[in-house]
């Protein structure tokens, strides 16, 4: 495609299907972990391996810190040409309160730059979209199919 564009779906209830033009069948099932009041829940029930990634955004330790009413939803691993991408949402009262990147490519300097700049930006856009009560975002942005694919799978199954 000529343009690299970002779509984050802010409304959550209605997402019923997802595909990628260059589809890679996801290999990891969606897992959801519910928070229980006060005591932390640490079972991720996800078979994915969490990877420490560069950048200042939170990485895959979120599930341990769930508070009452929070649910962690782990997206499928999205295979991109750069490597696997997987994200997790923390949801409370049908609202995304946190997005974490569990896995992302770290093979090259460029991948690391993506981790430091692109993912925090995408996370910010996700939360912005939700706060504005909008259904979608139109705009040119980073190559983000992996992020979106994993995010969408989490949304599709969790909200």
């Amino acid at each position, binding site marked *: *495609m*000529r*343009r*690299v*564009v*970002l*779509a984050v*779906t*802010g*409304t959550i*209830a*209605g*997402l*019923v*299907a*997802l*595909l*990628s*033009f*260059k*589809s890679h069948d996801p290999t990891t099932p969606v897992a959801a972990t519910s928070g229980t009041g006060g005591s932390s829940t640490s079972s991720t029930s996800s078979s994915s391996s969490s990877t420490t990634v560069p950048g200042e955004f939170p990485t895959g330790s979120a599930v341990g810190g769930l508070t009452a009413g929070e649910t962690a939803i782990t997206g499928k691993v999205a295979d*991109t*040409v750069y490597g696997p991408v997987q994200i997790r949402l923390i949801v409370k009262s049908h609202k995304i309160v946190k997005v974490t990147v569990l896995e992302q490519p770290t093979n090259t300097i460029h991948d690391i730059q993506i981790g430091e700049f*692109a993912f925090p*930006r995408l996370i*910010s*856009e996700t939360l*912005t*979209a939700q706060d*504005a*009560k*909008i*259904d*979608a*975002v*139109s*705009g*040119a*942005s*980073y*190559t983000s*199919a992996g992020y*979106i*694919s994993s995010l*969408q799978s989490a949304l599709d199954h969790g909200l």
Partner: protein
Amino acid sequence: MGTVVSFDVPDWASRDSGDGAVLDRARQWLHWVDATFSPYRDDSDVSRFGRGSIPLAECAPELAEVMAACADVSARSGGYFTTRPGGRFDPSGYVKGWAIERAAAMLTAAGSAGHSVNGGGDIQCVGDRGPGQPWRVGIADPLRPGSLALVVTGQDFAVATSGIAERGAHIVNPHTGQPAAGLASLTVVGARLATTDAYATAAFAMGPAGRDWVESLDGYEAFAVTPGGQVWQTSGFRAYLASA
């Protein structure tokens, strides 16, 4: 580069009903479009036709349809829309919006009165999202990552934004061969995504002159952000602005 397409069908989702088969068919359609039209696949009709391996008559008939539509957009835009953006045959600038518009029409045909189909930020909205609830689409602010420039709202409309990507291909001004640089982003709103998306590409390639051009088009409105942070919109764009 892959593009994610999502279908938002609130009515079906809220009633936990709907036609799953049509979603499968829409998915198959998009995969077929990719296999047939992708310039990144050596065996696609577009690639084979582009390098002269097969005549148009041996390609999927939809290719001729797409080429006719591209020729129309190219003529209307004074050549600012082209099927040879990088020198070789590549009608992607039209195909993506066209494929999404068709997918939305498949849902309509299957009985959905309200849905939106979003292909990587180019969006076809059909009907309302719910009773008395128009669709709301945010336009990303190209200069302030994570922020929205504004929100457009309505029924039965399409939105497409062209801009300067941080990586990957730029939109090229076909008349100079240089990346279009006059705008940070340009959004076109119209009734149907195929032309709306193609016009957004053409108007972005024009730069500031794209404003008068979109103004001259019946049924299309534009909003743009300049590299310096100025914004402008065509005269009818306000009809799409969210009142609250």
